[in-house]
């Protein structure tokens, strides 16, 4: 089971990061969100929690764009049919797409986070930075867990990309809010909030189980 999953991940990451407009598009969206907030007023007057919210808007938009691009490529090339014809299980396809979506999104979120940090004047010591990275990774994973399922559904429907945003954004509220809250508390120097960390983990675990149960129905 691991070789096909690795095959999907390697192929998808190569396409997302090096062979398509996907990375540029997701970076543009994400950085633009942060830039608008940074230039609209005086960033020094924004509270740390508000800055976290801005950063997480950028992360969420960028990740959705990455996942949309990934499934658009599958639809246009018949890639999903190819994976089905190879006899891959729905779980293997889902896990492969999830991991590749997570890697590609993390790459763009890293740049957006760095750009946001500079533009919004975020300050954190090394420990704080590591905690921010942990929260960013968990939050991105949560978005990808749900986003991979919803992107697969919407890619099969007419007008699917518009539908993806409409379907996905409400589902993402819990994980985006939990991540933004955690970010804000770390930036305020209050350390890692176990409550919000728990929400992120529970969200990812719950939607992972739901997605694994539903993915076969979606692709078949």
């Amino acid at each position, binding site marked *: 089971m691991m070789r096909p999953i690795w095959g999907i991940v390697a192929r998808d990451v190569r396409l997302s990061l090096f062979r398509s407009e996907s990375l540029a598009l997701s970076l543009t969206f994400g950085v633009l969100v942060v830039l608008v907030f940074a230039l609209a007023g005086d960033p020094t007057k924004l509270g740390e929690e508000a800055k976290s919210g801005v950063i997480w808007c950028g992360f969420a938009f960028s990740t959705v764009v990455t996942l949309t691009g990934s499934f658009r*490529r599958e639809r246009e090339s018949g890639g999903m049919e190819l994976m089905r014809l190879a*006899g891959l299980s729905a779980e293997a396809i889902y896990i492969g797409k999830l991991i590749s979506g997570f890697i590609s999104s993390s790459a763009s979120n890293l740049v957006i986070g760095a750009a946001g940090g500079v533009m919004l004047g975020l300050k954190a010591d090394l420990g704080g930075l590591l905690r921010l990275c942990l929260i960013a990774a968990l939050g991105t994973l949560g978005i990808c867990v749900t986003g991979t399922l919803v992107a697969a559904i919407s890619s099969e429907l007419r007008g699917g990309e518009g539908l993806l945003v409409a379907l996905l954004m409400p589902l993402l509220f819990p994980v985006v809010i939990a991540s933004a809250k955690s970010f804000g508390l770390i930036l305020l120097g209050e350390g890692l909030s176990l409550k919000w960390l728990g929400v992120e983990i529970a969200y990812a675990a719950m939607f992972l189980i739901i997605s694994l149960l539903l993915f076969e129905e979606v692709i*078949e």
Partner: protein
Amino acid sequence: MKLSVRDLGKSFGRKVVLRGVDLELEKGQAVCITGPNGAGKSTLIKILSTLLRPDRGEIRMDGENPFENPRIFRRRMGVVLHEPMLYPQLTARENLEYVCRIYGVDGKKAEEWLERVGLSEFAEERVEHLSEGMKQRLAIGRAMIHSPELLLLDEPFASLDARGVEMVIGLITEQVSRGGAAVITSHMSGLLEGVVSRTFQLQDGRLV
């Protein structure tokens, strides 16, 4: 693989595409299905590949219903549809290496099949830069790389030049002679004389 199709029916909305298709195919046999555009040839190939469910009728592969456990049967098939099922931004070699990975076959097969379909010198070209004929050759290599028992080819000669046609006929002949089976749809059934055991016309949703 023994394939048996009984009274297969498929409609899209009010349009009835297949009205009762019957087909028998044994190991070492190939059949050609002709018919005008829109006759339902591609629909039939998609149903046989289990990518599309029929509305009625029965398909048996070695006596079993492939829709009950499609993953097992799909691995035993090689399928070429209208879409080449290739990633345009990947090179010819990268596409075949990816197929090797997901089918769990030796990665060296990618090189072997690039040579067999005459694309060795274009191995590092992105698929989006290849001609339609080259894409079709690559799609046929992609479908055969795992040595399938049943080959389902929808218009395999589309966009091919004379050498490409000759190459595909050679590959189908080899498939049949090694005990595999093949269902081929084509407007150019004459090219397959001597390769296929029967030629059917898909007319009014039935094979005649």
